[in-house]
């Protein structure tokens, strides 16, 4: 139970679960946006399936916040764009299939690196949900990796578009793990997470290195300690505005809510 968490880590855990829930929900939206536009039928089906997985993970994480006294219905359906704590790379829809594949590999990868750090968590509600989630994520990673290799091998234009797509989002994705702050330290010291901040950045770089090296004959993603100017540790964002209003109307399910009966 959340009230068994010490007072200094309870807030950070709650904040992080919301960051992850919002990121999963937005990532699901971004996959769903390619169900009809993917370059082959099977990739569209994969996007539909990955969207379902992400929404499932999102629901499960929002539900966890009940344990922290949150109104889950309000969180899922009552917030404005500026209240969202999703990784900011997902604020706008990936414009090309190369952009979607970059998100598939890098953003989904970063989320999984974060969840892997909960595998032995001292917070049981989180620990118990991680295994099945990561099992599903194995196939998202395989999809991202296979497509990234394929696009990088698909001629000069496709190769440079793939490298550009990764380089455009990499700094924000690596920054997303946050600085090695008191907040990060509290998560690790309490045993809620096995690692935080720069260690998770290192793990993501290590996870991506073989794929990028094989796809590009040497990784285009340099690992430098990011600048944290304007970084809000509560939301892990630098921008105060969230996704655009149209996205949020879809995320909240405003149209579907119109049919709800009490």
């Amino acid at each position: 139970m959340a009230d068994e968490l010490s007072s200094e880590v309870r807030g950070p855990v709650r904040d992080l679960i919301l960051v992850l829930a919002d990121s999963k929900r937005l990532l699901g939206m971004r996959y769903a946006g390619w169900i009809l536009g993917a370059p082959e039928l099977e990739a569209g089906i994969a996007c539909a399936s990955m969207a379902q997985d992400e929404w499932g993970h999102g629901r499960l994480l929002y539900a966890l916040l009940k344990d922290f006294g949150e109104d889950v219905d309000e969180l899922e359906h009552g917030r404005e764009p500026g209240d969202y704590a999703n990784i900011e790379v997902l604020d706008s829809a990936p414009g090309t299939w190369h952009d979607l594949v970059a998100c598939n590999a890098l953003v989904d990868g970063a989320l999984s690196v974060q969840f892997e750090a909960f595998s032995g968590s001292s917070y049981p509600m989180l620990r118990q949900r991680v295994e099945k989630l990561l099992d599903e994520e194995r196939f998202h990673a395989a999809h991202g990796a296979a497509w990234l290799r394929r696009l990088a091998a698909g001629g000069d234009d496709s190769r440079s578009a793939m490298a550009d797509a990764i380089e455009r989002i990499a700094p924000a994705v690596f920054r997303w793990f946050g600085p090695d702050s008191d907040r990060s330290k509290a998560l690790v010291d309490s045993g809620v997470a096995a690692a935080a901040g720069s260690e998770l950045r290192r793990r993501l770089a290590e996870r991506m290195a073989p794929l990028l090296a094989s796809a590009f004959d040497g990784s285009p993603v340099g690992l430098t300690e990011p600048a944290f100017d304007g970084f809000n540790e509560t939301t892990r964002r630098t921008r105060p505005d969230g996704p655009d209003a149209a996205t949020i109307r879809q995320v909240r399910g405003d149209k579907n809510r119109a049919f709800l009966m009490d």
Partner: protein
Amino acid sequence: MAYQTVYEIFARKSRGEPLRHIGNLNAPDDDLAKVYAYETYDEEKWFDMWIVARDRFHEVFNRGDADTSSADGGA
């Protein structure tokens, strides 16, 4: 997109059960074929799942021409 191969998908519900043919899909390589097979056909709780490129199948015989009355004869 690039050159596509047809893959046949097999699965079974439990260990020891014979593999059952559950469908096919198009993919450019084995890696994506495995991902697509999982994403497309894992709605049921399979014990295991296998893919094989259709061009790796070899006909041993086909009695379809000799016996057209058989329900599973021709194909």
